[in-house]
């Protein structure tokens, strides 16, 4: 009843092709953005911001990048952690070695470095797919793990591979309190989400999805598989690299290669699967899910009065993640995003059954 599109006629293809063609959606997004930019910083505690919101924002960004590669273009990648690491360490190097390098520029350049590495490790995708490609991306993961630990120039001669940043500022404004960091990360996410959405609904997005769905037919209608796959790797690793930089600079402050290890890669893949492959929204759902679930599991014992020690809680988290992956793959391979859009479809008809 509330969600009907009655009376909303489009008189140009341009308006029909916009991101949120339904008025109610536009209103909802507007409210969401207002809440995100204004309400949350005002009302949320520093703990909430640091423990939930900031990691959620940055991991959403990384999941967004991964979703472009896996969900839209169908190229499996188990090396996302590595690309985050490249982005983080490259940004670090740019900042530390070049005097007066602005933070935003360092982060973006970190993304560019990640793009180069991403395209390089994306070359195997031109010849192999599926599980074989998964193993190839593992090579990227472990190689970068090693490089960040052992190649001195990567870590600016740190002996353990760990680096730290301090005294961050953006165009002169300080970036130290959780609120400031939150708004900074949110701004990045909002901009990148818009750019990504534009890409996936444009010509290149259709090329990516064509490659994913049937690459032989794609070649026959004139799509170049090489261009499509490599651009998917490039765009994906750029976004993931920037997310890596944000993770290191804004969330962690100081980090070592282990922050971007294979567990991180799996975590991001889980976000994308549970959240919804091939959906920008899905990346957010997945990130929210994966960030919030361990916190709920940790807190459950207190709320229900059942004592669970932390080790057991972490084992249970593993089990629940694993079970959920299998559950989603069987029941709703398109993840929470599909459940959401099905719910919206039903909402359009509500209160009528059909």
């Amino acid at each position, binding site marked *: 009843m509330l969600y009907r599109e009655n009376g909303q006629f489009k008189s140009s293809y341009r308006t029909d092709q916009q991101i949120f063609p339904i008025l109610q959606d536009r209103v909802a997004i507007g409210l969401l953005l207002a809440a995100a930019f204004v309400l949350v910083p005002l009302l949320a505690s520093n703990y909430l911001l640091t423990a939930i919101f900031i990691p959620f924002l940055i991991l959403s960004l990384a999941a967004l990048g991964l979703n472009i590669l896996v969900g839209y273009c169908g190229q499996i990648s188990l090396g996302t952690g590595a690309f985050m690491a490249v982005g983080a360490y490259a940004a670090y190097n740019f900042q530390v070695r070049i005097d007066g390098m602005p933070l935003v520029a360092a982060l973006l350049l970190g993304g560019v470095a990640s793009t180069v590495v991403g395209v390089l490790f994306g070359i195997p995708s031109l010849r192999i797919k599926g599980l074989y490609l998964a193993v190839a991306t593992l090579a990227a993961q472990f190689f970068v793990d090693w490089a960040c630990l052992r190649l001195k120039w990567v870590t600016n001669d740190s002996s353990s591979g760990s680096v730290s940043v301090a005294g961050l500022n953006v165009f002169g404004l300080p970036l130290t309190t959780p609120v400031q960091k939150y708004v900074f990360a949110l701004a990045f996410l909002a901009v990148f989400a818009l750019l990504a959405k534009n890409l996936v609904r444009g010509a290149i997005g259709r090329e990516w999805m064509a490659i994913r769905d049937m690459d032989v037919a794609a070649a026959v209608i*004139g799509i170049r598989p090489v261009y499509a796959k490599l651009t998917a790797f490039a765009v994906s690793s750029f976004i993931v690299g920037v997310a890596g930089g944000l993770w290191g600079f804004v969330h962690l402050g100081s980090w070592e290669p282990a922050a971007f290890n294979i567990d991180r890669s799996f975590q991001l893949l889980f976000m994308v699967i549970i959240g919804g492959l091939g959906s920008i929204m899905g990346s957010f759902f997945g990130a929210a899910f994966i960030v919030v679930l361990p916190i709920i599991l940790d807190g459950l014992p207190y709320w229900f009065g059942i004592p669970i020690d932390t080790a057991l809680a972490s084992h249970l988290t593993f089990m629940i993640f694993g079970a959920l992956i299998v559950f989603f793959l069987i029941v709703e391979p398109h993840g929470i995003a599909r459940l959401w859009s099905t719910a919206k479809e039903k909402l359009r008809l509500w209160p009528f059954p059909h």
Partner: protein
Amino acid sequence: MSPRKIGEVILEVNNISLAFGGVKALTDISFDVREHEIRAIIGPNGAGKSSMLNCINGVYQPQVGSISLRGQVFKHMNSRDVALMGVARTFQNLALFKGMSVLDNIMAGRNLKMRANIFQQALRLGAAQREEAEQRLFVERIVDFLEIQPYRKTAVGKMPYGLQKRVDLGRALAMEPQVLLLDEPMAGMNVEEKQDMSRFILDVNDEFGTTIVLIEHDMGVVMDISDRVVVLDYGKKIGDGTPIEVRSNPDVISAYLGTSH
């Protein structure tokens, strides 16, 4: 049928031989196709018809022989180059992009004509925005032509088979091809659907002047709509001519019905 002006030869298949390992799919096939005509390729199952189409459109590379389009000879060209030369095709098994809507599938066929680069697309201002709207207009004309307007935003995987076949045709048409290769466009259709599809094929040939090469099993359809026919059997050419000539060719008859007493 309104008389169409059939032009000069625009597609020539010369001595094509194709083998997979030890299996000979095609042996020394030669025929030509004239501009604006509808050329059918027929033959019993396994005769090599789809393989022939795959050779023309660059999916398979024949070991021997060459193909020329408007005088341009190609022996080893990949599908994309062939697509750029103006050859489009549909698939026997519907190679549609199941995860995308009807509109997106057909828009994908317009990708060849789209010029905005990736950065322009990301920002979606000005040129990129205009281009999307222009291409959408073109695609909508195809949607109207194929009478699939109510389904334009439906995911292709959810549509009935007959309609999916139309989307396959629409995607090929989006490429504005000079030569359209149709691989069993009427497979699995009932009588009404076949009539609709025949009408579409004739209209495409009529309105856009597209040269059509089609593989088809339904003899009635072949006799009705094609100008000339090539007959293949076990990878060899056993007949070539107008439908009437081919129908009374004893080799063709025995290939389909077995040698008679």
